[in-house]
């Protein structure tokens, strides 16, 4: 009997599953849904020109649409984590896909700017928020050996789709005007629903059903609510340190996205040259995500060490960007941008892969939700600060230097994590939370913690 049981477990812990088979199908689902969420968000700029003309509003009023969308996506992340913990991830992602599509479809009928804020901003933002955390957490739970590669492949879709969506959106707007284009985009966003359908739900454990039957008192509800949101994580030092580090990354990370073109133009290069620099950085970003994912999974280094390494490099390259352009050499600017793109992509695929190493796979869902919320509020600080510095000094050198220094600060914060300087991963804190696990993660986590224990030793 025990032989058979070990055989069954061994089959799941090995290279086939959960690291293969259905896991790769989920990577495809993540690829498609990430591209339809973030790739779409990045390419919405094409609509803004049309909105400025049609609604006769200022560009700033129009840009609030994407700000509201992004803020909603990040604000509702803990909510989506809680809903996944309460119900199942499949339902949450499918609902999120439906809401994202619905928001865009309703936006095609808008007659004033406020309609756009509510539909494209709030409804679609809520939908996007419901999609991101469960998708990433599911892929994390389904992989142990090739986790970072899977995440890197999933996130590479964002860069690729923003290349593909720009001409596609341009074509849609030219053929159907912005109303028809938004309608078709809503239809495209509905493709996230089948992606969510691919997440296999697990049968609900009996313990959870028992709890729901008993009468709920106020303290019970609060307790369950806080456990769904994984609020207890906020009291743990490793998680707080990690979140602080990632928040510091976020302050500086987006500055080149917003200011690289303007800075290149100011350094004296033409519009075409500046656009090429940004595209080149975007291309190496995609490569960086996949390559760093593959390399991290080889197991030569600890993920946290690799993350610190990449963030140090990104901070360094951001600080070098204005220096290279000030020398007036276009080749230097292109080289530094390529390197920056590669390292920032490498950083992205690792950021979320480190989370289960710190909090364990069981609590990854809630941890990701809270992480998204906290890091996004830091990201809100970054761009206005860099704009402010530019207004004071007159050029972008100070903004880039400060952004790079925030990244360096973040990587030093990571160094204060417990067991940072040891060569193996620290043991995960043992928690008695088996009754409030999300159903599909519960089964997978029991398999993958065994896998984790097996993979910890070779990691030197």
């Amino acid at each position, binding site marked *: *009997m025990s032989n*058979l049981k070990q055989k069954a477990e061994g089959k799941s812990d090995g290279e086939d599953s959960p690291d293969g088979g259905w896991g790769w199908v989920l990577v495809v689902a993540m690829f498609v849904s990430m591209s339809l969420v973030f790739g779409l968000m990045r390419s919405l700029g094409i609509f803004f020109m049309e909105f400025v*003309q*049609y609604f*006769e509003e200022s560009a700033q009023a129009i840009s609030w649409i994407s700000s509201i969308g992004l803020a909603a996506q990040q604000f509702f992340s803990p909510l989506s984590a809680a809903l996944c913990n309460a119900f199942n991830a499949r339902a949450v992602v499918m609902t999120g896909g439906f809401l994202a599509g619905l928001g865009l479809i309703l936006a095609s009928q808008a007659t004033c700017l406020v309609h756009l804020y509510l539909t494209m901003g709030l409804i679609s933002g809520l939908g996007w928020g419901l999609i991101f955390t469960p998708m990433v957490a599911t892929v994390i739970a389904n992989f142990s050996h090739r986790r970072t590669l899977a995440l890197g492949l999933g996130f590479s879709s964002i860069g690729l789709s923003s290349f593909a969506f720009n001409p596609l959106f341009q074509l849609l707007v*030219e*053929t*159907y*005007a912005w*109303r*028809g*284009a938004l*309608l*078709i985009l*809503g*239809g*495209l966003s*509905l*493709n996230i*629903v*089948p992606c969510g*359908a*691919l997440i*296999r739900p697990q049968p609900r454990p009996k313990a959870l059903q028992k709890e729901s039957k008993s009468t709920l008192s106020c303290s019970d509800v609060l307790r369950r609510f806080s456990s769904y949101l994984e609020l207890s994580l906020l009291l743990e030092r490793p998680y707080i340190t990690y979140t602080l580090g990632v928040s510091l990354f976020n302050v500086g990370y987006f500055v080149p996205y917003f200011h690289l073109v303007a800075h290149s133009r100011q350094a004296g290069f033409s519009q075409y040259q500046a656009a090429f620099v940004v595209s080149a950085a975007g291309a190496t970003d995609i490569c960086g995500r996949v390559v760093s994912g593959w390399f991290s999974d080889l197991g030569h280094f600890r993920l946290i060490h690799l993350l610190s390494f990449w963030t140090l490099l990104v901070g360094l390259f951001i600080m070098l960007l204005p220096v290279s352009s000030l020398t007036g050499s276009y080749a230097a600017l292109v080289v530094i941008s390529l390197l920056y793109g590669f390292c920032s992509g490498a950083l992205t695929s690792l950021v979320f892969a480190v989370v289960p190493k710190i909090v364990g796979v069981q609590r990854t869902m809630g941890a990701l939700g809270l992480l998204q919320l906290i890091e996004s509020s830091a990201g809100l600080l970054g761009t206005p600060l860099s704009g402010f510095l530019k207004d004071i000094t007159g050029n972008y050198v100070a903004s880039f230097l400060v952004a790079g220094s925030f990244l360096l600060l973040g990587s030093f914060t990571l160094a204060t994590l417990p067991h940072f300087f040891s060569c193996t991963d620290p043991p995960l804190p043992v928690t008695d939370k088996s009754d409030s696990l999300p159903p599909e993660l519960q089964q997978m986590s029991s398999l993958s913690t065994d896998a984790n224990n097996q993979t910890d030793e070779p990691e030197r």
Partner: protein
Amino acid sequence: MRPDGITNTEMSHDVTVKPDGGRAGARSCAAAAERSARRSRGRRMKTMPASWKLLLLPTLLLMTSCGRTDTKTLDPTQTPPASVPPLADLKREVVLKSENVTENIELRQLVRLFLECSLTADQNKLPNMTAFWSRDGQEIPDSRLTVALEKEQYGIQRLFNITSEEKVGTYSCVFENKVRADFVLATPRFREKRDKPVVSYVHDFVVLPCKMEGSENESLTWLWFKGNETHKERISAQPDRFEIRSQNLTSRLKLINLTFADAGFYYCAAVYAVGSTMNPIKLKVITFWEPLKPFIAILIAVVLLVVVIFLCEKQQSKKKVTEGNEENVDQNNIKLQEEEKGAEEGSSMRHRKV
């Protein structure tokens, strides 16, 4: 002897000038000033140079008194003559060697145009060269000159008063060795040319924009037309169909409550004193059914995908259940086999022990 003694008598003659003659008064003033200046010049030959100042004084007095008489003789009920806007000065120079040169000049207002052509002498270094000016290919009469070689160049200049739209054209300086420079005068062109049509929906409204490059405080007059290359109709603001909003360098035509008849070409014209430039914009009107077709196709594809995924999952779970049952049966069989084995071993051991 006082120099202004003579001028005073000249002045007394001018007081009887006609009432309508602001200009006439000025002319006789100028004539009187010229005459007195000539006499003073004659006297100058005999007197010392220090008397220059004395010469200036009477001429100044003459001018100012002329001005006063002008105002006195003007009838207050008469409207003053319309003031001609001062023409701006624009100068263009071209250096020619052996090839023809074309220079584009952008005109936004009426100008006094100074054009200068300098031809660099070739190895022949002829002492003289004839050249003339032409306009739109036709030689301007009385413009043919013989130019002398000066500092290795033959230079020719002319002043053109561009005072109306008819005077806008192509002016050229042509040298006898057939080398010419063409100055093409034109109103400013529109930079952004939109080659894709603007699309909008029936019962919706659309805004057609036009933007011209220029300085900030420049204020243009804008006109809108609908039609085609040959026949254009002026659009005037009608409250329930068209709305034109023009501000300095941009103009917007808003078409409200579109119908299929509103599709076609629209032209915005920026009007300058020296002419106007037109920019065509094409409008296409479609119904909402156009984007609805691909949308419904995508919707059907999404629903099919979801159904297929759920069906596949049901099938796989059914397989798993049957497999699970088979596995349980296998496990039971193996259990029984092991028990039997154990029993056998036990019995064999018992045998051995015994």
